[in-house]
C-alpha cells in the first residue's frame, strides 16, 4: 500500500490478513457487446435488477482490457492489475513485490518526478496501490476530462517505470517500506500475519508472506529490474476503466499508449496455479502470544475459493453464526468482539471465526459456544426466513458495492477462476446468492466446517510479546479410533 488513507475513505484498504488472490487460468477473450441479463424473479428477495456486463477485449500484446462506461459520471476509475504478487517472490526475497510496487511511482524519463504528484496535478483522487499474494494493482480516480493523460501516465509507468531508478531512489523507498511495516505492527496487525504463518507452512506459496526487513534491504536495483521484466508484462496485466468516458475514444487511447508495450527477452513465468490445498488432518491447536489488549480465539477451516460451490453458502453461515453468537455476547461480560467471515480468495479461501475476550479470561468458553452453534447448524437447517434475510443482505450488498466506480473497476479486473469464463461478473455473483437454500447451507456446514479437522489458534495478549508475535505451543489432537 502506498499511502495510508483516512478510515472513512471509500478506497479499498489492503487486508494484510487475507489477501485475495487472482489467477488467470485461461487466456480469455469475450466477444464484444453488452450482455443484458433479463429480469430474473428471485427466490425470495428483491427482483434481481438488470445489469450490463462490461466490454472485454485483448490487445495484440496480450493486455486484457475491461471498459465499463457509465455515461452520466464525471470521473473515471483507472485500475491496472498485474498477475504478480508475494507468491512470485523467490525464496529469501520477501518484500520484492512490494518494493517494486513502490518504485513504480518514482517517475520515468518522460514523466519525471513522483507519479502521485503528477496524478494529483490532474485532479486524481484515491490514488494508491496494493500488493497481494497473487496480484499487484495500481489505481486512481480521475476527472473524465483527464482520462487520456492518466492513461498515458499509467502506460509510461509500465513501459519505462524503472528506467530512472537509481540507488538513492531505492534507498528512499526501502525506508518507506520500513515505516509501513512498523505502522502495521503498531496497529496490531501482526497477529493476523502470525495466524497466516501457522496456517500456511513455509513451503506453501502463501507461506512466507511476511516481509522481512533484511530481505528488503538486500534488494538492489538490478533485482527489482529483473522482477519487473519477468512479471510486469502486458500479457499478465489487465487494464480496467469504470466511469464517465466514451469507450470508442478510450479504445483509441489504450491502443496508442499501451499497444507498444511488449514482453522482452525474459521468458514468461508459468501461469499461477491454484495453491495446494491446506490439509488439516485432525485438530491443530496453537497457543500464541501477541501484543494485544485482549485475548483472541480464531478457528479456521480451508474452504472453496470465490465463486466455487459452497462459497456463497458459507457467506450465509458466517452471517447466521454471527447473529447467534451475538445473543450469547449480550449475557457474557468478557466478550469484546465477534468477527466471523468466509474470506473468499480467488484461488483459495478460509472460513474464520474469531472471538476476542478480555485479557486472561480464556478462550475455552467461546470455543464451546461456537462449537455448540455449529453443531446445531449441522443438525438442523436454518429457518427459511433467516435465509431470505441473508439472501437480501448479500445481494443488496453486492449491488451497493458496485455503485462506486473504483470498486467496479477493481472487481471487473478480478479473474476468479470459479466464475463463468474466469472473470468476475456481477450478474453471476447475484445469481449464486439467489440460488442458496437452507439445505445447501446445512450441507456446507457439514462439508466445510467439520468439528475436528481445523486450526484453533488461541492468542494471549501480552505486552512483552515481540511485535511479530510468537508461537508458544503447537499440538495436534487426534481422536482415538
Amino acid at each position: 500500500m502506498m499511502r495510508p488513507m483516512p478510515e472513512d475513505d471509500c478506497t479499498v484498504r489492503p487486508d494484510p490478513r487475507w489477501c485475495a488472490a487472482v489467477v488467470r487460468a485461461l487466456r480469455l477473450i469475450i466477444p464484444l457487446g453488452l450482455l443484458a441479463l433479463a429480469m430474473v424473479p428471485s427466490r425470495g428477495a428483491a427482483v434481481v435488477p438488470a445489469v450490463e456486463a462490461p466490454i472485454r477485449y485483448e490487445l495484440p500484446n496480450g493486455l486484457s482490457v475491461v471498459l465499463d462506461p457509465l455515461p452520466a459520471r464525471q470521473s473515471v476509475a483507472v485500475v491496472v492489475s498485474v498477475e504478480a504478487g508475494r507468491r512470485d517472490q523467490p525464496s529469501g526475497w520477501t518484500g520484492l513485490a512490494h518494493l517494486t510496487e513502490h518504485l513504480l511511482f518514482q517517475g520515468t524519463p518522460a514523466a519525471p518526478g513522483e507519479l502521485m504528484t503528477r496524478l494529483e496535478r490532474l485532479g486524481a483522487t484515491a490514488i494508491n496501490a496494493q500488493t497481494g499474494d497473487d496480484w499487484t494493482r495500481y489505481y486512481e480516480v480521475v476527472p473524465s476530462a483527464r482520462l487520456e493523460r492518466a492513461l498515458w501516465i499509467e502506460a509510461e509507468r509500465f513501459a519505462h517505470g524503472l528506467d530512472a531508478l537509481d540507488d538513492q531512489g531505492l534507498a528512499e523507498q526501502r525506508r518507506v517500506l520500513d515505516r509501513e511495516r512498523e505502522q502495521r505492527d503498531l496497529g496490531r496487525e501482526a497477529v493476523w500475519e502470525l495466524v497466516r504463518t501457522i496456517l500456511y507452512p513455509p513451503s506453501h506459496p502463501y507461506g512466507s508472506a511476511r516481509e522481512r526487513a533484511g530481505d528488503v534491504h538486500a534488494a538492489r536495483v538490478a533485482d527489482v529490474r529483473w522482477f519487473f521484466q519477468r512479471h510486469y508484462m502486458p500479457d499478465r496485466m489487465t487494464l480496467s476503466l469504470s466511469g464517465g468516458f466514451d469507450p470508442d475514444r478510450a479504445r483509441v487511447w489504450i491502443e496508442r499508449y499501451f499497444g507498444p508495450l511488449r514482453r522482452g527477452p525474459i521468458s514468461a513465468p508459468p501461469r499461477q496455479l491454484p495453491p495446494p490445498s491446506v490439509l488439516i488432518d485432525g485438530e491443530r491447536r496453537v497457543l500464541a502470544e501477541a501484543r494485544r489488549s485482549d485475548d483472541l480465539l480464531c478457528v479456521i477451516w480451508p474452504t472453496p475459493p470465490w465463486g466455487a460451490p459452497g462459497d456463497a453458502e458459507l457467506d450465509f453461515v458466517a452471517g447466521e453464526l454471527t447473529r447467534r453468537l451475538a445473543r450469547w455476547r449480550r449475557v457474557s461480560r468478557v466478550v469484546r468482539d465477534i468477527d466471523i467471515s468466509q474470506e473468499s480468495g480467488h484461488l483459495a479461501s478460509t472460513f474464520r471465526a474469531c472471538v476476542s475476550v478480555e485479557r486472561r479470561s480464556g478462550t475455552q468458553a467461546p470455543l464451546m459456544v461456537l462449537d455448540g452453534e455449529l453443531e446445531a447448524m449441522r443438525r438442523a437447517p436454518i429457518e427459511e426466513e433467516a435465509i431470505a434475510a441473508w439472501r437480501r443482505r448479500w445481494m443488496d450488498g453486492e449491488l451497493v458495492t458496485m455503485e462506486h466506480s473504483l470498486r467496479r473497476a477493481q472487481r471487473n479486473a478480478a479473474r476468479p477462476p470459479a466464475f463463468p469464463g474466469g472473470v468476475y461478473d456481477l450478474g453471476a455473483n447475484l445469481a449464486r446468492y439467489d440460488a442458496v437454500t437452507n439445505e445447501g447451507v446445512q450441507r456446507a456446514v457439514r462439508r466445510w466446517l467439520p468439528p475436528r479437522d481445523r486450526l484453533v489458534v488461541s492468542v494471549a495478549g501480552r505486552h512483552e510479546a515481540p511485535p511479530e508475535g510468537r508461537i508458544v505451543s503447537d499440538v495436534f489432537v487426534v481422536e482415538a479410533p
Partner: protein
Amino acid sequence: MIRACSWVLLLAGCGAARAPLPAPAAERSWVAPLPEPEDSPPPAPPQLPPVVSAALPCGLTVQIVEQRSVPVVYAALVGRGSTGSAPHVELDALLELALNSGASAGDDPGEDEHDGARVNERGIVLTSRVPPSDLDRVLARYLAVLEGSALDDDRVEVARATLLGRVTFERAQRSRASSPPPTQELFSLLYGREHPRVRRMRMRASAVQRVDTARVRRHLARMAAPAESALVVVGDVDAAALESAIRERFAILAPGSAAPRTPGAAPEFPDPDTRLRIFGTRPEPSAIIRLLERGPAIEHEDYAAFRLFARLAGGMFSSGLNLRLRESRGDAYGVITRVSDRFDHSVLELSVVVPVGAAGAAAASVVEELARLSDPERIDAEELEIARTVELAELAASLDTSTGLGRALVAAFLAREAPSSIDDTYARVAALDAAAVAAAARRWVRPEKAPMVIVGDYLWLFTHPVRVPGGVGFVGH
C-alpha cells in the same frame, strides 16, 4: 488419545537462504518512447442534477434526484431537531444504537452497513443504500420513525445492554490506567473536559440506566420532528412517481410545525495550559503523533478555505508535510489530515506514525507547517494549485454516486442551506488564493496552541524532550 507433538517456534525473522537473482535483461526498457498527449482543458464544474423538492403538509421536506447509472438508491431521513431536543450524551448514544438496523448486542453497524443511524448534537441522520426494489421497506421504516412507532421496548433494551457493555468495559480500562486515554485527553484539550463530545467518551453506566424508554421515544420525536426534517432520495428512481407515492404514504402524518432547536452555546475551544501531552508506553519502535484543531462550520464563509488548508497540511500526497516526513526524511509512511463536520464547527485532525527517535522532529515539523500555511508569502503557488485541483476533483467525483450526492444534500439540509449551495462550494474553492487560505488559517488555526498528543516509548521520550511551543506535559505510563 492425544498425540502431542509440541514444539516451540521462534519467529525471529530468520529468513530462508537467499540465492542471487538472475541479472535483468536490460538496464533500460526496450519499449520506444510513447507519444505524449496534448494538454486537455480543465474539467468543467460539475452540474448538480435537477432536485425535485417538495414540502409536505406535515412540514417534512422532500428532495429527490434521479441518478440512473446503477440500480442503487440512497435514502436518508435527516432531522435537525426541534425545541427541547438538547444534546444529551447518554440519550443520543442510546437512541443511535436503538435505531441502527438489527441493533443487538454485537451487531454494530459496519462501514458498509446498508441501514445506519447517527445521533449527535448535529441532528439525527438515518441512511439506507438499497436496490430500487427495496425502497418501499426503507420508506416504511422512515415513516415509522416520524410517527413514533419505530422503537419498541425490546429494541431499546437491547440497545441499552449493548451500550452498558461498552461503557462498563471502557470504565474498567480507565480504572486500570493512571490517566485518561490519549484520545479522550486530546479532545479534552480541544473542547474542555465537560463538552458533550468529551463526556460521550466517559459515559457512566448509572446514567445509561436512568434513561427510560419513554424518554428515548420523546427524544426521537423531537429530533425527528417532521417540520424540521427532510427525506432525501437519490438514485435509480422515477422522481415524479416517487414524489406522488411519498405524498400519499406520508399523508398520515398530521400537519404541524416545530420550533427549530435553539443551538446551544458554541464550544469555547479554550487555549490549553499545556498543548502537548506525551503518553509514555512500554518500549515500542514507533510513536503516534496526533493533532486536533477547531475549524469553521460548513456554512461559514471560511469553510472552503479551511478545507484547502487541510489539503495543504497533509490531506494529499503532495503536501509539504507529507513529502518532507515521508519522501525526504523517510520518517513516515504518510500523514493523514482530514476535516470532519460538526453542528456549529468543524474539526481538523492530523495524525502520523514515526519512529520514536524522530518524534520530536516530526512534532516540530507539524507545528512549523501550520505556521507556514498561515503566511500567504510562504504558500507555494504550485502546491496551492495542486491542492485546489484535488479538492475540486474530489467534490465533483463525490457527486457521481447516489451516496455522495445524497450525503451532500443531507449536509446542506443540516446547515439550513439550499441544494444549490453544493454548486456554490465548488465555485468558492475554485476562487481561493493563498491570501484567502492563510487568512482563514489565522482566524482558526493556532500553531502554538492546537492540542497535540504523542504516544510512544516512555523511556525514550522522557530522556529526549520534545520541544514545541505551548507547553509539554508528560503523562507517564
